[in-house]
């Protein structure tokens, strides 16, 4: 279980995350939503130890993140940030193989290769696995990175805006794969997401942040409500029900 207790982070005198406490439910998709600069990505970075925290506690399976050995935590928690610009000459398969580093330290054995194969077929990248990353489109690159995270085979998967730069088809594809990861492999997934309709359709739990603090949190159906969303985004959002799903209409 990931438990965040009274965590704060200050950048240049400004509190970007202010005394946040939240418990991430296991075996579900949790979405962090909220306006720009609400501290969603910073919170995710702190949970995954990419960024240090100034105060408070974050525990993964009962152990404080800073107490974990980095190599061991890499088998528990994986993180994918939104900008992954690298100039290396890497094929898709080589990138995915990097996901096995916590287990193999760079020397892949047969079991590692099996995980890499599975991750590649999970993301439907078989026919382009020997292509170089710089030959791929943004969506394909994103899928390759997600395949790498799948190969890392961690219980917790943290994704910072995984749908950034993706078209509708690939966005839906990736969200469906995330649901499948939860259903098939009982992963716990946390995503930072801007499109509240994707959050509404695909997540079980929503944590809404605003100005570095938690504005509201709860099961998806309790958060996707006009009055709750008004508190988060300061705008009136109509909710329509279509086939048991709530759609937010916020265009006008």
């Amino acid at each position, binding site marked *: 279980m990931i438990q965040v207790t009274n965590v704060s982070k200050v950048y240049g005198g400004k509190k970007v995350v202010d005394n946040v406490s939240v418990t991430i439910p296991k075996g579900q998709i949790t979405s962090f939503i909220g306006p720009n600069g609400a501290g969603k990505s910073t919170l995710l970075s702190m949970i995954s130890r*990419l960024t240090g925290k100034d105060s408070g506690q974050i525990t993964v399976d009962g152990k404080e993140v800073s107490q974990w050995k*980095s190599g*061991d935590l*890499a*088998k528990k928690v994986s993180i994918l940030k939104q900008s992954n610009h690298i100039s290396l*000459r890497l094929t898709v398969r080589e990138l995915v193989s*990097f996901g096995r*580093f916590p287990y193999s330290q*760079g020397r892949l054995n047969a079991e590692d290769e099996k995980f890499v194969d599975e991750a590649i077929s999970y993301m439907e990248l078989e026919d382009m696995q020997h292509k170089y990353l710089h030959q791929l489109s943004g969506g394909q690159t994103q899928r390759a990175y997600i395949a790498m995270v799948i190969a890392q085979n961690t219980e917790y998967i943290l994704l910072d805006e995984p749908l950034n730069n993706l078209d509708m088809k690939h966005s839906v594809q990736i969200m469906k794969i995330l649901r499948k990861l939860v259903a098939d492999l009982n992963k716990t997934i946390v995503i930072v997401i801007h499109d509240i309709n994707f959050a509404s359709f695909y997540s079980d739990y929503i944590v809404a942040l605003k100005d570095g603090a938690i504005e509201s949190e709860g099961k998806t159906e309790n958060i996707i409500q006009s009055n709750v969303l008004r508190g988060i985004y300061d705008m009136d959002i109509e909710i329509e029900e279509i086939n048991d799903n709530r759609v937010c209409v916020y265009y006008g």
Partner: protein
Amino acid sequence: MTYKAKLGLLAAAAIILVAVFLFIDLGGNWDYALPRRIKKVLAIILTGGAIALSTTVFQTVTNNRILTPSVMGLDSLYILIQTTVIFVFGSFTLYKLGSNVNFLINVGAMILFAGILYKILFQREGNNIYFLLLIGMIFGTLFSSMSSFMEVLIDPNEFQYVSDKMFASFNNVKTELLILSVIVVALTLLYFARFAKYLNVLSLGRDQAINLGVNYDYVVKRLLIVVAVLISVATALVGPITFLGLLVVNVAYEFMKTYRHSHLITASILISIIALVGGQLVVERVFTFSTTLSVIINFIGGVYFIYLLLKESRA
């Protein structure tokens, strides 16, 4: 061509050049010339290898293909120390000091300086690697300005000694220094071996490296220490020549077309040896010592650097 074939090709070229260097025009002077040439070749292999390895590591850690460790200002510090000794005590003192002491002073000062830089860098979180480069550059400029200031004040005869130190030269390498350097470099390599496996992951960038379980600050700090020690030894042994690193590492990238550091490092070390031995041959046989090796290396390196900048700006 497979990676093995490419590496074999480079190794063959390096061995042939070394053989040519050792045996060309040897005549009947085996006893006299051969030991001297062997010593020279050893110095070349040592510095070339040290610079190739440290530049590869440095570029991976900084995720930047157009940097050399010289931006940390170690070369300028070396020249400053030499100039200061000559400025304050005169060239005679430098001569009397003996090359051993001079070598130790230089290596010690450079490693100390790098240590202080790293201390500043890792003191608080949020200082990134570019902060280190910026501070290193500023100090490097400061050191060169101080050196030039002293250079214009000293006696022209004394300046001759300074300018001798400003360019790398393999012509007067002392045997005892060579042995000392080999020991230091060997120990450094042993230490480096523990961290070598992280290099591929580090080239994915900080966030990915941490995600994959690399204790980032710890590993980067130690790798940077390895870089500083190697550069210091190479510079103190033959003079400032880090520009060579930029050249050979980029050629290695272009030639090997891989991200694997085991291949890249081997290739860059071999290319480095080829460039230095080849360059030295040209200096000795074509220019008959009328120029120095670093002039040639800097010229070729400079042209290649401009080409790289143009290429990168188009990409």
